[in-house]
């Protein structure tokens, strides 16, 4: 058999490695910044561009898509070539993929602080960037599949299965969730409304965790752990069960983000059941990873790479135990909207993704540069700082989350709520400070890692094209006697792609189609009417400022919530909400009925509160929105917004777009006049007027006759 000589492309791997190091440090720095904003709200919220609501999405997007994203591509480009014994199909495609992805990250870093956001968590980027992501993702998939097709190894190792499933599922998730109607270059409305938008968003949001933060990293674990431990994976058969069970179950689990909300109950229950079952494949994978080290545990004491990997896999096990537990309704009732969830995601993010990324980097960089790691001591210091950082981050947040939930829920013996919401906010601040310390430790470790890796790069020379040889693959494979039918799955990448696609579509389809098609799932409420033009503009400012990052708009049917916020939220109340704004965290109080019942405040209260929140609510951590008083409302967009809403099915009368601005000004003048009575002079054409109009509208419709 003829042996072919070829070269592996290490340059692209190196580029992605450097990108993941740099973006990691940037993303974590922004994370530390937003954490400290909750401790020092007045000094660190640099308005308007660097307020919490605008840069919290910057943090999440940076660590998910820039740090972990580049980490995925680094690992995939390295392992794929070697597992297939083939160079990447096209250097040009690799280059387009690398630079295209970095441009998308830069575009995100510019647009998010500018307030250009769809307000859908982890999918905040606006439509032109969404299109760019789609194109670059196709380039990645094309390059990967073309490499698989020209491979010299017949079998597809399980890591590649994970890569294929990642590619297919992220493509589906991104396309479905980004279905939006552009009204200008930087603004669009999501196609879905209210409950349906929530379901699609959390189907996406949960599976972004599953198929961006988990499956590709499991692929990396299955390649790099055996490499680092120098022994094969514990059980290959278990890895196959792990793969199919995981991708089949994960896709159903999204609704656990919406327990006790207005989502139909059957969908919530499905989410709970499948989330709970996820513990089995997840722990199967974790056990498989840890047992790969059987007989090599003594090396974990010395080998810093193995240390990083062991903590990573352990953190994977902890967060995938916690996830199913948090999906149980009784636990979710306590944990949802609290800082417990923040702790949970950081055990996954800092522990699983962060530690595995650095473990791989410490293994990869010296090998590609044909040298030794610059300093083992420094890497050990990084390891301990990172491990302690995770603990200092997670423990205060777990404590805070429990405390928060119990303070929200406690009643006095006479049946009154025991704590004002504000008391729970001020109680949190020391915990926010401690968590920031955890973040600082972790970031310090990452910076040490960066220095160490760059020094290593400095003392070696990159083997940009690494020589390799392997026999060519026979053109046709003779089926030998006794061969089982299933063997072709391991050889047919397209079949693998199609099967992964079918498997992940089942769960999504079962949950989504009925919610969209069966009318009784979203009962209409006749008194719920579309927003007025002024309220719609105000709502878009609410979206722009990322208010959803701290305020929910979803009252769950608990006495502690209905007492505090009013009547629980109904599915029919959100039918005109493009996008939905239910939120996922209550750093501030719920706003679903901000304009109704006991929550209703005067226009002057809202004005003063937005101007200087802590002057009205002592101890508030909300940033000042004083700039809304100076900014003029852009009414040039009103007509196109109304028309877009009509296209999406919001029943404004025909021709309403033309008179919308007149109605907008009429309502604005009323609010300005009302403020004047309270001694506040402000032009009716300012942004703050529209925000007040929106806040005063919230939750009022169901009481109208």
């Amino acid at each position, binding site marked *: 058999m003829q042996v072919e000589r070829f070269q592996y492309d290490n340059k692209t791997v190196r580029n992605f490695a450097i990108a993941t190091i740099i973006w990691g440090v940037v993303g974590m720095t922004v994370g530390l910044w937003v954490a400290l904003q909750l401790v020092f709200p007045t000094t660190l919220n640099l308005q308007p561009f660097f307020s919490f609501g605008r840069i919290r999405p910057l943090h999440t997007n940076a660590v998910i898509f820039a740090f972990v994203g580049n980490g995925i591509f680094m690992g995939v480009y390295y392992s794929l070539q070697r597992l297939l014994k083939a160079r990447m199909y096209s250097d040009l495609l690799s280059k387009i993929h690398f630079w295209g992805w970095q441009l998308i990250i830069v575009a995100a870093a510019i647009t998010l602080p500018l307030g250009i956001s769809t307000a859908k968590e982890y999918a905040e980027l606006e439509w032109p960037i969404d299109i760019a992501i789609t194109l670059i993702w196709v380039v990645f998939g094309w390059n990967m599949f073309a490499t698989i097709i020209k491979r010299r190894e017949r*079998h597809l190792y399980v890591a590649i299965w994970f890569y294929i499933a990642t590619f297919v599922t992220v493509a589906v998730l991104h396309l479905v969730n980004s279905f939006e109607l552009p009204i200008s270059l930087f603004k669009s409305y999501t196609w879905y409304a209210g409950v349906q938008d929530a379901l699609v968003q959390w189907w996406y949001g949960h599976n972004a965790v599953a198929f961006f933060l988990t499956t590709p990293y499991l692929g990396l674990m299955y390649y790099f752990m055996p490499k680092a431990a120098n022994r094969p994976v514990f059980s290959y*058969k278990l890895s196959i069960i792990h793969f199919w*069970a995981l991708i089949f179950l994960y896709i159903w689990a999204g609704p656990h983000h919406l327990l006790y909300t207005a989502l139909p109950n059957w969908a919530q229950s499905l989410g709970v059941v499948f989330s709970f079952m996820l513990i089995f494949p997840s722990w199967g994978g974790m056990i498989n990873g840890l047992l790969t080290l059987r007989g090599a545990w003594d090396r974990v004491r010395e080998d810093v790479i193995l240390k990083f990997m062991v903590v990573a896999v352990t953190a994977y096990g902890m967060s995938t135990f916690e996830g199913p537990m948090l999906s149980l309704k009784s636990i979710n009732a306590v944990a949802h909207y609290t800082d417990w969830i923040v702790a949970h995601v950081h055990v996954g993010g800092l522990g699983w993704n962060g530690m595995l990324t650095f473990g791989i980097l410490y293994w990869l960089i010296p090998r590609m540069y044909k040298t030794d790691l610059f300093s083992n001591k420094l890497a050990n210091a990084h390891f301990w700082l990172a491990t302690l950082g995770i603990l200092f981050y997670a423990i205060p947040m777990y404590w805070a989350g429990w405390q928060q939930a119990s303070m929200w829920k406690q009643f006095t013996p006479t049946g009154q709520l025991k704590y004002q919401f504000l008391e729970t906010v001020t109680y949190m601040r020391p915990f926010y400070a401690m968590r920031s310390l955890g973040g600082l430790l972790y970031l310090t470790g990452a910076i040490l890692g960066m220095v160490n890796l760059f020094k290593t790069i400095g003392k070696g020379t990159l083997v940009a094209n690494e020589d390799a040889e392997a026999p060519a693959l026979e053109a046709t494979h003779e089926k030998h006697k006794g061969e089982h039918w299933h063997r072709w799955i391991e050889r047919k990448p397209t079949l693998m792609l199609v099967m992964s696609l079918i498997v992940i579509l089942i769960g999504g389809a079962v949950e989504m189609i009925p919610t969209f098609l069966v009318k009784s799932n979203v009962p209409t409420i006749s008194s719920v009417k579309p927003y007025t033009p002024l309220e719609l503009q105000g709502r878009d400012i609410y979206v722009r400022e990322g208010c959803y990052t701290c305020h929910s708009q979803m009252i769950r049917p608990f006495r502690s919530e209905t007492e505090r916020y009013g009547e629980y939220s109904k599915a029919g109340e959100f039918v005109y909400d493009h996008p939905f704004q239910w939120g996922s965290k209550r750093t501030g109080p719920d706003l679903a009925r901000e304009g109704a019942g006991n929550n209703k405040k005067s226009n002057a209260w809202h004005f003063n509160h937005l101007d200087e929140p802590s002057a009205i609510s002592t101890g508030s951590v909300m940033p000042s929105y004083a700039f809304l008083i100076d900014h003029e409302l852009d009414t040039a967009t009103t007509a196109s917004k109304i028309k877009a809403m009509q296209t999406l099915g919001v029943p404004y009368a025909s021709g309403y777009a033309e008179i919308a601005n007149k109605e907008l000004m009429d309502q604005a003048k009323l609010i300005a006049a009302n403020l004047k009575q309270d001694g506040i002079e402000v032009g009716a054409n300012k942004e703050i007027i529209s925000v007040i109009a929106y806040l005063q509208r919230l939750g009022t419709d169901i009481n109208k006759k």
Partner: protein
Amino acid sequence: MFSFIKKYTETMEHSTIYPIFSLLVFVVFFVGVLWYVKVMDKKEVDTIKNLPLEN
């Protein structure tokens, strides 16, 4: 959206088939995966298992 099929599905008269179908899909899928793993060729598994260590 989907107005062309919506009128047929809004009431979903035969909706009882839905959970049964889901359960069947689920059971068939997992039995399939377990069976597939069970009948895998041991030698081949060992070959694949060692792929990462080859280079």
